[in-house]
């Protein structure tokens, strides 16, 4: 992290720090460095003190529960997934939940928590483009049409996106591929006939 950019806004083009007098002005202000027109909307997080991220250690006393991963530390909260006791170092806050590093890693790999998903593959777009674009070179559709049908069936239940999405692309791709297969069948029958 660049420590210099804390609490200061820099020009995106030249990197010149912009003084506070140029923030929250209802117009573009020229950067002193490169004369680019800049408009900066600043919020209280610019001047509020930073949350100290360093974990606090609290040694366990004789009659207290200790952390599962750090037996010398006092347990402050149980993991909401596996129930293990966690100290302040191990506690990972995810929304309203407290989970341990091990369960966090599992949730990331399973993509069971939408907040932790950073990337998804759009199989519906792949299927739709596989159905449409090969039409430009129609003879390829003998391969791509069945492939499209396979993709539509195989990935129908796969989560597509964290934002609301319908499966209309899958349906459209399936329909187009079905028509292509039908046309190939018609062509085959005609040729044999």
């Amino acid at each position, binding site marked *: 992290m660049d420590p210099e*950019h804390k609490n200061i806004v820099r020009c995106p083009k030249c990197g010149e720090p912009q003084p506070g007098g140029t923030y929250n002005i209802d117009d573009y202000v020229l950067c002193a460095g490169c004369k680019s027109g800049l408009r900066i909307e600043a919020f209280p997080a610019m001047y509020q003190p930073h949350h100290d991220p360093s974990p606090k250690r609290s040694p366990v006393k004789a009659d207290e529960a200790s952390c599962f991963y750090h037996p010398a530390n006092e347990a402050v909260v149980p993991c909401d997934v596996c129930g293990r006791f966690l100290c302040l170092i191990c506690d990972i806050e995810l929304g309203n939940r407290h989970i341990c590093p091990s369960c966090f890693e599992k949730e990331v790999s399973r993509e069971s928590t939408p907040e932790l998903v950073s990337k998804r593959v*759009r199989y519906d777009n792949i299927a739709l483009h596989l159905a449409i674009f090969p039409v430009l070179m129609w003879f390829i559709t003998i391969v791509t049409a069945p492939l499209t049908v396979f993709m539509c069936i195989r990935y129908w239940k796969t989560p597509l996106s964290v934002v609301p999405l319908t499966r209309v692309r899958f349906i459209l791709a399936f329909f187009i591929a079905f028509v292509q297969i039908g046309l190939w069948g018609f062509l085959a029958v005609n040729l044999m006939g």
Partner: protein
Amino acid sequence: MRYKRLPGKKSGFFRKCTLYRGEDHFLSVESNIYTEEYFRFHFSEIQAFISKKTDRGKIWSVILGFSALIFTTFTINAAAPPAGGESTFFGTVAGIFIIAFIYNLWLGPTCSTWVQTAVTVHELPALGRARRRRRFLAVVRPLIEKVQGPVDPGRIQEIRSAPPAPPEVFPPADFPSPRPVEPAAEPETSGLPVNNAGPVHGIMFGALILSAGLDLYWIIFPSFPALFFSLLFTLVVLISIVTALVVQSQRRMTSAIRKITWTAMIGFVVTFLTNYVLSMGYLFRNIGMIRNGAWEYYSTLAQEGLADMPLMAGFSFFCAAFFLILGALGFFVMIREKVSGKGSSSRKPFAGKGSAVR
């Protein structure tokens, strides 16, 4: 978690960006058609939104307006008797460009917008128009102020160029001392020698010159072999340009070489599309030709060349000359860089997109 759509959208041919509002954050969805990446920015952590005016909208206006003008001219030219299907075709294309031009004007001025938090500065491609940015902020500002509180103008004014001293941190006694915060690594571009254009770019420039020469030869002396080699070298040019673009994205090259390569790419795309459009116009006018298959069209091209297509012949001459000059310019710049042995570097203060919170 339910997401609601926020104002702001960027729809490109290969890239699409949209914004959504969550409970305590907003989500930037950046899609390249086949994959989506998610960037989350919590309202409690947003320090600022930074917008910079850009000329992108004006450049698009020039391109679209010029294209509309060109195709309108083609339409008027083709409408002169004996009129055929060409005028309809060119008129349709001109109409599309005119609509796109008006739409671009309606969208308003362009800008680039970034969101700054304590750990990152991340560009929001969905807020590329000033009007969209205003509408987005009108929705998001109250949400941020609800979490962070209202802005104190006095405290904002106090922010000066020199950042405040970092807060003292007392590490636990029996934990190892934290590593000292290292100064931000210099961007990769500074202090390192510039890579001169290598063999890939040399091959590309050579292919441009050869392809231009073959095109000129085929226009003047049409024949099957000439057409075949002309088409073959067009493919070679395309492959070499794409390879050169990939190579220069991974290395630091001088601005001149990068611009020439990009100009070659854009020129190739424009040439291809325009030739395609002109060919379609010709085929519309000679509809009987395509009833016998595409082979007759290519056969006519090979034997008679562009004698029956003066517009395409003129355009092809222009493109051949353009690529000839571009290839020669590329070679000249390459040789000059090798001889002088120095290159320029342009430091970008925002080294990439940073490590956005996902």
